[in-house]
């Protein structure tokens, strides 16, 4: 019985990867495995995580078995795609994920304020918002409002950034009467 390779991969790869990860993690619960031994009784610090990993492995194996059965003996039910379902733009997904991760990485370097400003501008452009004046106004006013509320009112120690960015963030805070 021929099973399309792509369908087989989609059905088998995720549970296989999770199963492999669970088995691999069982050997990496602690940096020093000797520390996992119970100082008294049966249940040391490694017992609960090992139990949970066993649960992960068991359920992944069950999911894998169900997918194998479904691939070898299809139920015959129609699996037409939902015409109402949204179509995904893979490129936009990659750029969106990249933008979000870059935002997180930039915060400790250029400071929360500047990183947020760049992120908001980037996200609005990615979302199809193209009016330059609107983008600038929303980003500047929005970030100023966020900084004023969270750094000024709630006194949250948001990251100032490093080097020249730290000085620039402090100047912005002074402008906003936060400092």
């Amino acid at each position: 019985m021929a099973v399309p390779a792509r369908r087989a991969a989609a059905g088998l790869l995720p549970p296989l990867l999770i199963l492999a990860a669970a088995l691999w993690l069982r050997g990496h619960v602690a940096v020093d495995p000797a520390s996992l031994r119970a100082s008294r009784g049966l249940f040391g610090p490694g017992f609960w995580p090992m139990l949970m990993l066993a649960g992960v492995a068991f359920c992944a194996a069950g999911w894998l078995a169900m997918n194998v059965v479904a691939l070898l003996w299809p139920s015959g039910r129609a699996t037409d795609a939902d015409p109402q379902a949204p179509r995904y733009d893979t490129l936009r997904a990659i750029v969106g994920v990249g933008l979000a991760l870059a935002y997180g990485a930039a915060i400790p370097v250029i400071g929360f304020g500047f990183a947020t400003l760049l992120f908001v501008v980037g996200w609005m452009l990615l979302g199809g918002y193209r009016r330059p004046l609107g983008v600038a106004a929303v980003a500047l006013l929005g970030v100023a409002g966020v900084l004023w509320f969270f750094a000024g009112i709630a006194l949250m120690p948001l990251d100032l950034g490093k080097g020249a960015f730290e000085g620039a963030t402090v100047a912005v805070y002074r402008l906003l009467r936060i400092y």
Partner: protein
Amino acid sequence: MDLVSLLTQGIAGTFAPYNFAVMVIGLIVGVVAGALPGISFVNAMAMALPFTYLMPPVAAMTFLGGIYVGGVFGGSISAILINIPGTPASLPSCWDGYPMSRRGESGRALAIAITASAVGGLMSALLLTFGAPPFARIALTFDQPEFFAATILGIVSVVAIAKEDAWRSFLSLFMGLAVATVGIDPLYGVARFSFGVPALESGVNFVVVMIGLFAIGEVLDLICQRQDQSALGRRRDGGRRAGLADLWSVKGSIARGTGIGCMIGVIPGAGATVGAVIAYGVEKQASGQGDRFGTGVDAGLAAPESAKNATTGAAMIPLLTLGIPGSAATAIMLAALLIHGINPGPLLFATDPRLVYTVFVSMIVANLLMIVAGVAVARGFAQLMRIPPAVLGAFIVVLSVIGAFGVRNNIFDIHVCLAFGVAGLVMKRFDFPSAPLVLGVILGPLAERYFLTSLANHDDRVSVFVTRPISATILAMALAFLAWAMWPRMTRLWRRAPA
């Protein structure tokens, strides 16, 4: 002193202008804090605690009680409107409340949520007023094995979330339970899954996971859709409003949710999250429309909403009668009492009945006023839906990042949150359930701690969980719930099997 005169004193205390004013302020603060993702009502109560130094004890308790009642409901506003539970207890409100918003029925969903929450909270406050002493005697018999059994009951309720594929739901749950073990273990102080990275030793906070999976994951998902970002726009409320008939039709769900919430709330340590999740699971079975749950069913929203607010009054029973705080919120209230030199316990009813009965009456009044506060804040929040989706999405990510950072003022939490955001997108793309994972991260640390401390206190005898009557009963209930939930699936499989 008889009950009527005690209640009269409580009413006079509650409606004293100063006490009433701080209660209303507390309610508004609570609803707003609850609605903001990452800033829970517990944070708000902790931040408000220093202000209570300046207040008389009665005002301090009505103020904190207002934040508590308002905050437990407030989390549902963001859960229903933008699929971001403001508090962990609002997680089940996402499952049916958010699909209603996506259909353009956000006003109707909020009306059902507010009504259910108010009824649940009101019944719970009445239970607190009239049933505190007998309930306290039962709660006194609870120890670590019973807390463990109650947590297991909450975890087992994940089968309610599972639609057709129980394997994937349980896999997601175990993944969450495994994520919850990252960091220093609660009994021995050994770092687990840290890989030598110091930041991982402090563990993965469930609020960070929740914000990442639900808020950032959702925004990332929307930006990937090729339909001019109209998905957020679809949430604009153009659908039908909730009429009295709609509210009346969920009376059974509200009653069941309220009953469960009151029972769970009185158990110290169980709390609103466990109550709401169990209520959702029970309602899925009891409502007769379980196969439609998760698509925007009124009963699926009403039951957990009533249950989570029904835990508020009930959770104060062990606090006031035994001095046992059953949750972080009631622990802050205990701190406020102790700051004022008041030791809660059975004696408090004799030494300061005015305080006790003012707290009782203020909880009743706060639940009634919550309807007004909830509607006002929800209206303000609903204005967000008019903002262009690209702008709203950007600021949801920014607020989520701030919320994640605010949990422990730790930059590492931002990275964890964004990583779970990407994981949320992948899970959504591949139709892998994320709610059980969040439930596992929330309840995992509780389950482990109760399990290990139970064994440490009982010479490592695993049988302790089945030899203690209350623990055994709760575990039997969990087993029965599992069988009850799995039975329709089993029978379907049985019928499908060739003869």
